[in-house]
């Protein structure tokens, strides 16, 4: 016998299946998961454009005008449309997942999932409404 404690005589010949590179196409929820993960790229894209906008804003009205003109290019409009769909998907899927992470108890009972999701959507609408009000007021 070998001195190596990990060595087993007549070790069974296990079969190990390798995970396919295309595992995420095997069922619809895996695909939806990978799409949800991909949305982060578009969220990052949006953040970069936003930073770029702030930079243009600090450089005066002329630079800002140039920035706006650039945004109107068909390529940018197209990318923005795609990014919008993905960011929306990002927001909705994450809002729907919040009750999994947040267990809120009131009067000894667990608050139902729909109430947690609902309050998230309500807060989203409220904040969006407030931002829209501030921006569109003038």
């Amino acid at each position, binding site marked *: 016998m070998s001195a190596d404690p990990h060595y087993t005589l007549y070790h*069974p*010949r*296990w*079969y*190990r*299946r390798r*995970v396919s590179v295309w*595992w*995420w196409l*095997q*069922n619809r*929820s*895996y695909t939806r*998961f990978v799409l949800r*993960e991909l949305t982060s790229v578009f969220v990052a894209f949006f953040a970069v454009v936003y930073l770029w906008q702030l930079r243009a804003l600090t450089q005066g009205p002329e630079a800002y005008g140039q920035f706006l003109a650039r945004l109107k290019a068909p390529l940018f409009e197209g990318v923005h449309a795609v990014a919008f769909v993905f960011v929306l998907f990002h927001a909705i899927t994450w809002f729907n*997942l919040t009750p*999994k*992470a*947040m*267990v809120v108890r009131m009067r*000894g009972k*667990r608050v139902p999932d729909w109430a947690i999701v609902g309050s998230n959507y309500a807060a989203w609408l409220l904040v969006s409404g407030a931002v829209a009000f501030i921006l569109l007021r003038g």
Partner: protein
Amino acid sequence: MPSTVALTVTRYRPEMEAEPTWETYEIPFRKDWVVLDALNHVKDNVDGTLSYRWSCRMGVCGSCGMKVNGTPKLTCATFLSDYLPGPIRVEPLDYFPVVRDLVVDITDFVRKLKQVKPWIIRTEEKPLGEGEYLQTPDQLDAYKQFSMCINCMLCYSACPIYGLEPGFIGPAAIALAQRYNMDSRDQGAAERLNILSEHDGIWQCTFVGECTKVCPKHVDPAGAIQQYKLSGATHWVKSLLLPWGTR
């Protein structure tokens, strides 16, 4: 109603073949039969060499987990009638090494389960004379869901992360760690945090959510992991802002 249904089963006989193959059995269809009944019929009447695990036949022991038509299922609770007209495909659980036919080696899971210390840890035991540790129904309710886990490992088979990152502690073990963390009698949360907050712990989980979908006991391991992430992150922020407060 058909009188028979085709059952296509994975065969792997390491002494005969290097890779698994398929074998199809035409078995009598009965409305009250589950997939496990069909396998038992094959074993008793058609081919005695077929190997698979089972024990209780009533969704308690967690031994008969297999993939039925691609989805991890307890075969004792999966009716043939839901898969008509067939064929019904039965495979071993994914991501575990296959020992023979439908039998997988579960050593990895058992080792990980032990790592998270799934038992009540007390820093100090109170003397026997003081009686048992009492618990209110609300305190029981806080962890009861996670205590329903029967270690069937369907959640591991459903988790692509476990397939891609074999070091990942995995859904059931984390849910069971959370079962003890949430128990008012337990004081071992800090000990478990060391294991669960490591690279192969909760942060490997990217929330695919399939573990919760396949769980036959509605344990919701995905929920347990996300809740643990939230409390882990809160603990970390607190220790950053109030280094003296968390000690």
